[in-house]
């Protein structure tokens, strides 16, 4: 029972119509709360990496004959908040919403957020009221991960609101454990439990959850300290001691987030030499960095957090060993008399960037100690995104050989494939460094073609091992998604995921 008031880092209430904006936080608070996907993430455990779990679909499978054909069996008796039934028609309707710009319900804004999440889907159709068939363009075993992004909103509600997404926004209807009752743009949104939720275990214990956008970290902390909210996302690391000192609780856990440097693999880049890459990875004092962040980070041992189910057993041990680093550098032909100078793009702020400037300066110092001089080119976050999309060869990259970026690595595609696939070399995709390796390409193909989840995990581990062994990135840190909350907040389990389950929480009056 009780009301939970949450200070979000977003500057606005995320889009309420289904497919949310405001990045991971949007999905966390307005996606997986009000809506469900066919396949949900299992957020019940804090101890292991979260995995996929049946959502609105109870089961799914591919046709062994034609691996592009997927069949989804839908959960029976699920109702939208407006009382209408969740059916196969609703699934198709919701897939048309971002994918079919000829459909009436097509919504640019939801499409902008959703379409790119399900790139593999070619077509879909109703098989029977509780069965849907989805056909992919090519065999793709990662489809379930893609599908997990798609939120299902009520077609009936859309009709009732005059087929106007603007109106739906004020009065949305999903199938999720929470219902949106009121919403003041940029100020607050109020959610109450959906007592008819199909999963009894996830019927929220709270009376109400209030979401308040508080983009400014200091304002967020002040609000918590002065008792205006009970929970804030991402407290500034420096404030953690002050918050703890005042009796507030800091909760954190590993989750699929990565804070890294991408390397340019264009002709002439020093990063083409594995020795240089290894040297850089061995030069970083991650423990020191962790201290800088008040302990709120996980020291990277690879591209995935060490606890990830896809981490595997790489041979190259990513650790702090400046002497070894110097040796590697010497092997590459650099030394105190011939220092290596590289240029890196960094940004002063940005989503998931943690404390970009101090961290980058710290890294700059570390690298300088082994003989790698880094020149920073500080660009604004939005510019940085554009440069990331444009790739290392684009003039906008200003000849930089490295770019500091951070993002979620929630699934095989976002976590691994998109960064290094040959088809996705920028500007076609987000392979910024123009990396293209047949061996890696093969691994990616295997991922897509391994339909048994356990087997697929193995391939993913192999892929990740190659990431680490070849030192394809500068592995630095993983965020731990810190949140600070008042001691009154009970029962929260922080899953190792971008998304969280708020159903278990209660407020002690």
């Amino acid at each position, binding site marked *: 029972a009780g009301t939970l008031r949450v200070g979000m880092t977003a*500057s*606005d209430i995320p*889009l309420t119509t289904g497919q949310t*904006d405001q990045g991971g936080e949007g999905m966390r608070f307005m996606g997986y709360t009000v809506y469900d996907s066919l396949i949900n993430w299992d957020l019940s455990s804090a101890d292991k990496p979260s995995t996929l779990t049946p959502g609105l679909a109870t089961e799914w499978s591919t046709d062994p004959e034609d691996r592009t054909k997927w069949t989804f069996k839908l959960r029976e008796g699920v109702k939208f908040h407006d009382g209408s039934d969740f059916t196969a028609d609703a699934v198709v309707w919701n897939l048309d919403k971002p994918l079919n*710009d000829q459909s009436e319900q097509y919504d*640019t*804004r939801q499409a*902008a*957020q959703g*379409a*790119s*999440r399900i790139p593999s889907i070619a077509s879909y159709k109703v098989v029977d009221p509780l069965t849907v068939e989805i056909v992919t363009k090519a065999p793709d075993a990662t489809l379930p991960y893609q599908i997990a992004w798609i939120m299902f909103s009520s077609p009936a509600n859309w009709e009732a609101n005059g087929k106007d*997404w*603007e109106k739906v*926004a004020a009065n949305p209807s999903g199938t999720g454990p929470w219902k949106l009752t009121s919403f*003041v*743009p*940029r*100020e*607050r949104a109020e959610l109450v439990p959906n007592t008819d939720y199909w999963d009894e275990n996830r019927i929220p214990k709270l009376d109400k959850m209030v979401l*308040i956008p*508080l*983009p*400014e970290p*200091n*304002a967020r902390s*002040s*609000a918590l*300290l*002065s*008792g*205006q909210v009970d929970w804030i996302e991402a407290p500034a690391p420096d404030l953690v001691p002050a918050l703890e000192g005042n009796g507030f609780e800091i909760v954190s856990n590993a989750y699929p987030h990565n804070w890294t440097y991408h390397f340019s693999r264009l002709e002439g880049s020093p990063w083409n030499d594995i020795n240089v890459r290894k040297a850089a990875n061995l030069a970083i004092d991650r423990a020191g960095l962790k201290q800088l962040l008040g302990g709120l980070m996980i020291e990277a041992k690879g591209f995935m957090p060490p606890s990830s189910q896809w981490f595997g057993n790489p041979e190259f041990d990513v650790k702090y060993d400046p002497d070894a680093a110097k040796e590697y550098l010497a092997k590459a032909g650099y030394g105190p008399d011939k220092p290596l100078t590289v240029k890196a793009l960094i940004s002063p702020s940005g989503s998931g960037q943690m404390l970009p400037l101090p961290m980058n300066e710290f890294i700059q110092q570390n690298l300088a100690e082994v003989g790698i001089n880094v020149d920073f080119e500080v660009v604004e976050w*939005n*510019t940085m*995104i*554009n440069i*990331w*999309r444009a790739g290392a060869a684009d003039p906008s990259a200003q000849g930089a050989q490295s770019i500091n970026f951070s*993002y979620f690595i929630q699934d095989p595609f976002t976590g691994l494939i*998109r960064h290094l696939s040959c088809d996705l070399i920028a*500007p*076609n*995709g*987000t392979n910024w460094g123009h990396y293209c390796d047949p061996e890696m390409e093969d691994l990616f193909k295997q991922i897509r073609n391994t339909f048994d989840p356990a087997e697929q995990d193995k391939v993913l581990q192999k892929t990740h091992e190659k990431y680490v062994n070849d030192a394809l990135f500068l592995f630095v840190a993983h965020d731990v998604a810190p949140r600070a909350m008042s001691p009154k907040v009970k029962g929260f389990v922080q899953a190792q995921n971008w998304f969280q389950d708020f159903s278990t929480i209660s407020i002690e009056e």
Partner: protein
Amino acid sequence: MLAYTLQRLLYVIPVAFGVSVICFMLVHIAPGDPLTAVMPIDATAEQQAAMRAEYGFDRPLPVQFAIWLTNALQGDLGASIATGRPVASEVSRAVGNTLILAFTASLIGFPLGIFFGFVAGIFKDTLIDRAVTAFAITGVSVPNYWLGIVLVVIFSVTLGWLPSMGAGPGGSTNWAWDYEHLRFIILPAVTLAVVPMGIVTRTVRALVGDILSQDFIGALKAKGLSRFGVLRHVVRNVTPTTLSVVGLQLGYLLGGSILIETVFNWPGTGFLLSNAIFQRDLPLLQGTILVLALFFVFANLIVDLLQPLVDPRIKRG
């Protein structure tokens, strides 16, 4: 009077047009793609082009301006890129909050400023004057965003007397002039009022000093008016200029609240604007600035229209 009023009213038209041109151009001097921030970071080139067309950013400038202006005249300021909500509704909600804040700040800043200005002007070159002047100059010199932070630390966090952010316990939609809500406005309003108060104090002080040194003050004394009687005349004489300074400072309160609103998370136009800037939500930026500037034009128009009522020297008839 009628001619003057009409003339002032008509003069608003070219100014408002100029304002709209500048607002429109703002967006187009902006480097980079206005849609950057809203596209998913791994959107394809095709998707980007589609979005650009959707938002009309692929048309020639004058066409965009004509369309924009025509729509604006009908109250349609386009849709926010970031939220997709109509800019007009976003801004109108935010303007209400800014006005509440600006109004409260003027209730604090202007009367105090005028009062202090009078005191200092009357006791010119005395200790009182020095003290008031020092106070006023401090008010003008202090960076108010910093003051805001300091006040939050003292009054919200340390003492816990007043809330540090937001516009009322339930958000701004159900704003009311009751204690529960006013608690929220005290800190931002005081912070916002400091600069206008300093400026008004200084202006009024100078004006009062100036008026007091004019010949007719001697004449008023010569006809036997008491200090108070003379003061009445000073007040009347100071009013027109004070009014126009207050008008100008209203602009400060409307536009200057951006930093304050950010610090206090006050859901007004400043807050909207800073979001618009960081999300590069250009239609929103454009619309907000246009509305604020028009409000300011309007406020000054009212001040100008009031002028002849307090200053008979402005031509009448």
